[in-house]
């Protein structure tokens, strides 16, 4: 509770201290984040020792807010506050050239509080409250620049989030009405007994959390909103905020949409999981392909986030589908969530650092920076090694687990489709390596297209922050087994999983030749893809209309708003048409 309250109240302190000048504001923001970090650390150790912590305020919002911290929440609270603290440190220098810094600090600290609230919430109702707070606080971060692209991207983000929130609220209505509470307990059998279609329930939850999670085809706000936000904000949005969607899926698929043993409903979980594998595949492949063809650096990274969320959903789906045998899949998804939080925020801050020096983020215009920014190049290579899963860096551990999980699923089920999905996964790994390599090749090694000789290397404070990141990436990579033991296994122990799989997770064969071949394959594919791209001089002839937004959403919106626009031209006529249509629709619904 306190952990949520500190930043929420802290945002007011930051606002107040801003009157004492910039130094006071920065100090206040840093202190609040540091305090949150320390509290999360304490919480983490407390939870690791014993049972979950619960807390509630019964009088807020008539139903009361509940906090419940189990190992699952505690780990993520720790990661959120750590990354947020680093981003806040980073933002001091980055934001120095922007306006409205006070608003940024306040909104950022407030978003920290509400994001933590989402992870620490004890029931769906509280989760929803913090989810909405986070949506609106993060909006301030997205529109920070206040120019046309920022406002438009912000609007897309805001409306999609509001729709997602409302759909989620619909799900909460159903659950509250039928179960009388909204806590995270297995309730699939209860909901089905009340006569709900399981696919309707799954659809509602997918639409509710999918918007935040950047799931294809609900992702369209993400590649617009993340690049226009200031770099520290995009790091936070991309690394942490979209995780709240994945967190919601975790809670629903592994807890809420399960039923007690022997109720004969396992076939539903199995198909839910299978659906998620497919969603995950589409998301990761689509995200990676789009990342490959775009040239603004932050946009590439934003699409990369979509792709990485696909990995998480993919692995989660595998775990859910296998039920008791799904330990590896769940572990993979969980570890990947942690890993992605670190390397994606790292990459976005690097992009910010480059932008700070060059005022340019278009990969087709950058070039040759290695001569002027060698330290940045080094750090970028480390981050790239993290995301592409080079052995010894953090992405490797989770990718091995995901790969194992899908193969495990294939061996157990024997479905041909699973083998193809495995190939898609490997291919996406290759695409990931390709678009990341494209960034450092174009930005650092290619021939300079402008004069960057005046560009200085990154500042000392940035070096400090990035070193912390590099150490984390290396620790999580070299000590992948330790990370699994400390961060992942305690979470999985609570579930009904086979002991053999859990034992396997304690000794994952990370350093065998078979697994080490994975990254080699990736870079092999990457080399081929890059060769093809090079044919087009890294400007592939992709038509500009090729996006889900242009193909699906824009026509839909204009179709829906056509009567409204017609009315502007023709006067009153179209009112009556709408009136008639709605009237008959309502009548038909109630009398049929």
């Amino acid at each position: 509770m306190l952990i949520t309250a500190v930043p929420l109240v802290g945002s007011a302190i930051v606002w107040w201290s801003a009157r004492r000048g910039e130094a006071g504001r920065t100090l206040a923001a840093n202190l609040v984040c540091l305090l949150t970090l320390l509290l999360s650390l304490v919480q983490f150790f407390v939870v690791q020792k014993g049972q979950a912590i619960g807390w509630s305020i019964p009088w807020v919002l008539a139903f009361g807010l509940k906090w419940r911290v189990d190992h699952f929440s505690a780990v993520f609270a720790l990661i959120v506050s750590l990354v947020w603290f680093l981003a806040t440190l980073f933002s001091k220098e980055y934001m120095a050239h922007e306006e409205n810094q006070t608003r940024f600090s306040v909104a950022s600290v407030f978003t920290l509080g509400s994001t933590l609230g989402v992870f620490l919430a004890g029931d769906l109702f509280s989760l929803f409250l913090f989810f909405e707070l986070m949506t609106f606080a993060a909006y301030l971060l997205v529109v920070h620049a206040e120019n046309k692209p920022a406002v438009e991207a912000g609007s897309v983000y805001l409306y999609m989030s509001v729709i997602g929130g409302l759909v989620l609220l619909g799900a909460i209505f159903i659950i509250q009405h039928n179960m009388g509470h909204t806590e995270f307990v297995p309730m699939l059998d209860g909901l089905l007994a009340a006569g709900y279609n399981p696919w309707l329930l799954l659809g509602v939850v997918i639409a509710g959390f999918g918007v935040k999670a950047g799931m294809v085809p609900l992702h369209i706000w993400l590649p617009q909103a993340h690049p226009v936000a200031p770099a520290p904000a995009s790091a936070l949005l991309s690394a942490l905020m979209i995780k709240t969607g994945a967190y919601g899926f975790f809670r629903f698929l592994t807890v809420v949409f399960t039923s007690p043993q022997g109720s004969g409903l396992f076939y539903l979980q199995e198909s839910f999981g299978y659906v998620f594998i497919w969603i995950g595949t589409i998301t990761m492949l689509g995200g990676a392909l789009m990342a490959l063809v775009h040239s603004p650096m932050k946009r590439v990274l934003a699409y990369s986030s979509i792709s990485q969320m696909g990995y998480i959903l993919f692995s989660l789906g595998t775990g859910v589908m296998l039920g008791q045998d799904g330990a590896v899949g769940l572990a993979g998804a969980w570890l990947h969530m942690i890993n992605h939080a670190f390397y994606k925020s790292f990459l976005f801050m690097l992009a910010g650092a480059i932008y700070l020096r060059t005022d340019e983020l278009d990969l087709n215009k950058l070039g040759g920076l290695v001569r002027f920014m060698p330290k940045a190049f080094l750090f970028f290579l480390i981050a790239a090694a993290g995301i592409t899963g080079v052995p010894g860096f953090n992405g490797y551990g989770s990718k091995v687990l995901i790969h194992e999980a899908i193969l495990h699923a294939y061996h157990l089920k024997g479905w041909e489709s699973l083998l193809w999905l495995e190939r898609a996964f490997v291919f996406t790994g290759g695409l990931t390596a390709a678009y990341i390599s494209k960034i450092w090749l174009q930005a650092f090694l290619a021939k300079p297209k402008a004069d960057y000789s005046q560009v200085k290397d990154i500042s000392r404070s940035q070096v400090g922050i990035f070193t912390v990141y590099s150490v984390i990436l290396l620790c999580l990579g070299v000590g992948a087994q330790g990370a699994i033991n400390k961060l992942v296994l305690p979470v999985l122990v609570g579930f009904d999983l086979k002991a053999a799989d859990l034992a396997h997770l304690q000794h994952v064969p990370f350093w065998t030749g078979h697994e080490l071949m994975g990254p080699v394959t990736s870079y092999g594919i990457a080399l081929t893809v890059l060769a093809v791209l090079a044919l087009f001089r890294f400007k592939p002839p992709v038509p500009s209309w090729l996006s889900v937004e242009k193909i699906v959403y824009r026509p839909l919106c204009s179709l829906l708003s056509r009567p409204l626009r017609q009315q502007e031209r023709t006067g009153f006529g179209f009112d009556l048409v709408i009136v008639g249509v709605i009237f008959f629709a309502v009548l038909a619904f109630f009398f049929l």
Partner: protein
Amino acid sequence: MLPLLLIFIPIIGGVLVGALKLEDRLRDRFVLTVTALTGFLGLFLFPYLSEVNVAVLRFSRILPPFGLSFRIDWLSVILVTIASAIWLLVTIYSFDYLKPSHHINRYHSFTLISYGSILGTLLAGDLLTLFLFFELLSFASYGLVIHEGDEKAMRAGFLYLIMTIGGGLAILFGVLAVYFLTGSVTMTAEGFLADSSILSLLAFLGFLIGFGMKAGMFPLHVWLPEAHPVAPSPASALLSGIMLKVGAFGLLRIIFNVYQYRFLAEIGWIKILLYGAILTILLGSVFAIMQKNLKRRLAYSSVAQMGYILLGMGLLSEQAMVGDVFHIFTHAIMKSCLFLVSGSMILLTGKTDVDDFKGIGKRMPISMACFTMASLSMIGIPPFNGFLSKWFLGLGALQVNQPMCAVVLLISSLLNAVYYLPIVINAFFRPEEHDFSRVTEPSLTMLVPVVILAIATVLFDIIPVNVLLELSEVTAATLFGGGGGWALNGPPQQAAHANHSSTPGGLGHSLVVCP
């Protein structure tokens, strides 16, 4: 005596303001005193309820042969309280707003008379008293609608007048029919009419038309988006915030205290109201999106929000009724806040269209922050009040097995977002198109009421002792025959059956504890 005082202090005050040509400062003080005094006296209604749940006062010597009668129960008392509170705030706001205006005396006079007649309607104990004050309210508020006196205002006022007279006649027909059927027009706790004859249906329809017209129910809403925007902004705040609720209140009385609600549910007449409400919600929101004029957009939004309230009644579930009563408060607070802020914006910039206010958030940060809070509350974002009413309404809809209504609520929330958020986004994040360099925050007396209202939109969700919500729960329980006392007063109390013999003399005043 208290109800009489409550009603006639403002009415006589209003007549005095109109008759005496007081000097400006003196007049403002006088108006403020009258409003504050009435609101203060309104608080003394609560002692009636601490002993019994429902008190009925009869004054048989006034207007014989029927006499006036007043019914003091939880519903009326809390509505009187909320109306008085908002009235006081809006009055404070109106002094500075009206300074550059004309006919200020007339404005205040009509406002006070409206105030008195609203209190009369809320406290009325039988249908005739209700009708009497309802008609008085219609004519007094006509004076507010046409205040500006230009052609647009006169046309809107004429439309309003015609429709309101028609609605009044429909109500009168209903009253007569009820009297013909039962020989009584006095409201009772359980309702006294359960007659399935045609006449009874026609009477119900008459009430539905009359009160529904006042409440802006589709398709009787047409006067509303004409009349509210042309009135001066404080008057629009009162019209939208309080006066619409009087129509809803009348329907509540009809459904629960005249007819028996179980009867209405069984025979299915309530469905008419339900479908009307759904149409009102959806169409009100859709039309609101199409509006360019800020105040017209707000007025259509009022139509949609009144749809929520009508929906809550039409569902006839206790949980929905909690949300319903709570939404009556919530909407009163939010909408008066929105109208007051837009009044400041229009007064200071001279612009009226939504698109004109780009970048004004930089010039009027406090006002626009209040506007944002009220908008978010309208959309129903937690932790604002609007969320709580939506929550109860949605659960109530599921409770009586009408999931479609819950879906309508969610769709409507989205539509609310579509027409409120652009105003906020334009104000804060778009560059200025017009020259607002001389625009600043309005004066303190215009700002403070707005800020108080904005704080209230979030306050009644997060305070430990949520007075408004508990009151809503008690009211819903009372309406549904639970007879529960206020939770803060200990265990629920049953309405005591104690007849005080009428004291002779005076006004023939007698206190009857209602069965």
